């Protein structure tokens, strides 16, 4: 892939090829909507005709991890559900991206109790965070377009060839400032 090779030695053809591949991938998103809670209503609203998500090429949800490339985690994830989510994520094939939809999946939302996972980035790597309780469909489409930019560049939180250690040390883990204390 483009990440391993020195850019100066690449020919014009291969860079165009990578761009074409990124363009093709970003306009044919097969998402896995992992819907658990109220954010699912906003996901459905975004997917239906008024705020159409099919015009971005993401019109076909795939309810099998083997067939999907983007995992939309929609709604509160409880600690009982967390191993299931990790299994689904592990079963997906690369290239894969993860979207944290709704503030419960970003940081735990307004829940701070015995049952809720405080942000799914404690379990799986996340590419795009869409906050909101629930996020407006316009916010969802904005997040989707940011995801498309990431897909075009061929980068993802999962797929860096060196793994997550390729990021700078202070960004390698989730942002938990109190862990230094």
């Amino acid at each position, binding site marked *: 892939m483009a990440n391993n090779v020195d850019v100066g030695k690449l020919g014009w053809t291969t860079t165009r090829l990578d761009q074409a591949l990124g363009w093709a991938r970003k306009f044919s998103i097969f998402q896995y909507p992992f819907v658990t809670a109220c954010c699912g209503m906003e996901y459905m609203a975004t997917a239906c005709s008024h705020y159409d998500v099919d015009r971005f090429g993401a019109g076909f949800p795939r309810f099998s991890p083997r067939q999907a490339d983007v995992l939309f985690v929609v709604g509160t994830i409880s600690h009982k559900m*967390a191993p299931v989510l990790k299994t689904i994520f592990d079963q997906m094939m690369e290239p894969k991206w993860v979207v944290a939809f709704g503030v419960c999946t970003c940081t735990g939302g307004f829940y701070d109790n015995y049952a809720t*996972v405080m942000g799914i980035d404690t379990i799986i790597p996340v590419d795009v965070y869409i906050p909101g309780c629930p996020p407006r469909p316009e916010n969802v489409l904005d997040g989707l377009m940011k995801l498309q930019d990431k897909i075009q560049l061929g980068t993802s939180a999962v797929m860096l060839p060196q793994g997550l250690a390729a990021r700078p040390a202070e960004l390698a883990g989730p942002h938990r400032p109190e862990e230094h204390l």
Partner: protein
Amino acid sequence: MAQSSSLSELVRTTFPQWVIATHAYGGNDTVVLKREGLIEAMRFLRDDSRSAFNVLMDLSCVDYLKFGRTPASRPSITTPSPLPYFMTPKPNAQVWERGVGPEYRFEVVYHLYSVQRNHRLRIKVPLTEADPAIDSVTTVWSAANWLEREVWDMFGVRFNGHPNLKRILMYESFQGHALRKDYPAYKRQPLIGPLN
């Protein structure tokens, strides 16, 4: 109304040895029973034609550990209250007597409804912390199956004779009972991932 208190009177005259107290909080008849007479009283209430309670609407539990000692349980005009003013109970608000002392920490509450007669009854059974066990009413109403599992999961009240008393909301490796007042609400026990 004379008719609404007749349900409490019916229970009191039929089982005088097990009724601790009766009242009508908020217009709903309530009977506080001892746990020994629970199954017999429930069967009577379901089968007798004057009561005909064929629906168990709800089965839940109350933990009285901090009752009266937190602002949420005894707000008044002068003490600071977490509620806004219009939600604070006023000084002559309706109160209910528990009928038992504070050594009974839990109370299992049954809400019964009769479709034929269109009347409701609330049964409360006080339990101590040392022995929070009670008979299961799954033989009377099968809706009690999952409701009792939830009470076991959240409060730790054992139901004798329940066919499948396992946790229903939390996972089996969860330690403790989550809705008890001495369980900190933010204490997570993750299966995978970091603690916080």
